[in-house]
Structure formats: structure tokens, C-alpha cells
């Protein structure tokens, strides 16, 4: 293996966030311990628990959306690595170019439970979300978006390898 063009980070986001964190609230970042007054806790009862204990894509989609019918679509863009640097922290994001998106879900088909996370997307919120998920082993990762009641998806195979350095 050989090197690629060396990277020097000149005032990138890393530095900005780091400075903001070090500066505390003044920079718009805040870290209160527990402030219940800030906002009411969400209702746990709204949690689609059944969707999170399924072992197949169909059963997961059925439990989450009431249908398992899904169409692969180029209008759903998904970004995930070919090879995960570490299965514990895999950046996954999607961006749907579709009208009336109301919900979305990220599935990892070979995880113990297929559903990784799901979102309810109100009007005015962009159907594009980035997050980090865990992958137990090499698996197909599927981004599903509900647009006008119909499910559309993009998927990608993400390889999870064993690290050598502990």
C-alpha cells in the first residue's frame, strides 16, 4: 500500500467545533447536565418497538410503515463507506429528492435486529439526515424513505473487517 496525497487540515470544521467546545456556551454550544425545564421529554409510548425487534427487511418495514413493498430509486441518495473503519461507528447518511417525505428508516440487513433507526419528518424538514450506526458484520445497509405514502430505497453493501490493532 502506498500513500495518497497528504492531507493538511487548515481551519477545518474540526478546529471550529473544538474551539467552540472549549469556549463553552459562548460559542453556541451548550452542555447542561440535566435541565428538564428546557423541553418536555418525548413520549416513550410513540416508540415503534415492534419495528426494532424484526430479523428481516419485510417484517421490519411492515411493522414500521404497514407495508413491505419498496422500490429502489435513484432519487434516494445514500452515503456509506465501502469498508467501515470500525463497525462500531459507521457514518451513514441519506438524501431523498422526493415530494411529501414523511418518514425514513435505516436498515442493516445482517445486524441482529434489522432496524437501526427511523425518523418522522414533518413538513419543512429536509429529507436528508446523517447519523452513525453500528454494524455487527459485513451487511447491506438500506435507506428507506416514505414519500406520499410509498416506500423508496437506496442500498449499499458495507464491509466490516477485523481491526488488527486491538
Amino acid at each position, binding site marked *: 500500500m502506498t500513500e495518497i496525497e497528504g492531507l493538511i487540515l487548515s481551519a477545518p470544521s474540526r478546529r471550529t467545533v473544538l474551539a467552540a467546545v472549549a469556549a463553552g456556551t459562548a460559542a453556541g454550544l451548550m452542555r447542561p447536565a440535566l435541565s428538564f425545564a428546557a*423541553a418536555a*421529554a*418525548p413520549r416513550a409510548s410513540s416508540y415503534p418497538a415492534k419495528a426494532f425487534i424484526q430479523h428481516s427487511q419485510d417484517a421490519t418495514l411492515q411493522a414500521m410503515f404497514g407495508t413491505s413493498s419498496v422500490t429502489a430509486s435513484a432519487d434516494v441518495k445514500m452515503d456509506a463507506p465501502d469498508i467501515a473503519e470500525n463497525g462500531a461507528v459507521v457514518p451513514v447518511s441519506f438524501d431523498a429528492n422526493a415530494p411529501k417525505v414523511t418518514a425514513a428508516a435505516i436498515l442493516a440487513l445482517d445486524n441482529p435486529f434489522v432496524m437501526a433507526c*427511523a425518523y418522522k419528518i*414533518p413538513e419543512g424538514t429536509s429529507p436528508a439526515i*446523517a447519523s452513525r450506526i453500528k454494524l455487527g458484520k459485513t451487511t447491506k445497509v438500506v435507506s428507506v424513505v416514505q414519500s406520499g405514502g410509498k416506500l423508496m430505497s437506496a442500498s449499499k453493501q458495507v464491509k466490516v473487517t477485523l481491526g488488527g490493532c486491538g
Partner: protein
Amino acid sequence: MAHQILVHAMSSGGSTTVEALIKHPMDSGFVKDKAGKIIPAHYIEVIEFTHKGKIVLTGYWGPAVSKNPFIKFSFKGGKSGDPIGISWVDNKGETAATSSNIM
């Protein structure tokens, strides 16, 4: 220093981008500790983001969301100084909430 939430919300060009890092173990229930005992599942189930009290995103998370979860999304509207609220509840019924202003 448990239950911290770091928020970074920035408005530009008529929309607001929210980035948040939430301190939580997100234990999957599949991992053993050093003594070989399963660490019980402990993860955020529902997380809600509000802008001036109106919900702009609801997340449903499972044990496969990474430890100290990160999320980034954006919504139309929002201006500097508006409050962004974040609150979550996990599978043990623990909750946390915070509010931050858009930069």
C-alpha cells in the same frame, strides 16, 4: 456530567442546520463486559427536536445507533437566536432535555 447534549445549530440561506452529539452509552445488549457478563441493553428510543416549540424531527433509535450518537439534519426557516429544543427518553425511562439558540 451525565446526559450531556452538545448542539450546534446554524442558520443560513433560509434554512437551519442542526448538528447534535448526545452523550449516551447506547449499549446494544449484545456486548459482554470484562467479567464476561452481558451488558444490558440501554439505548435512547425517542429523540425530539423542536424549533420554537414546534417539532422539526422525531428520531426513533435502536441498539444499533452508535455510542454517543451524532445526528445532522436541516429544516426550512429559523433565524439566529431562535431556540432549538432537544429531548430524549431511553429504554430505562431516563430522560434529558436541553435548549440552545441558533447561531
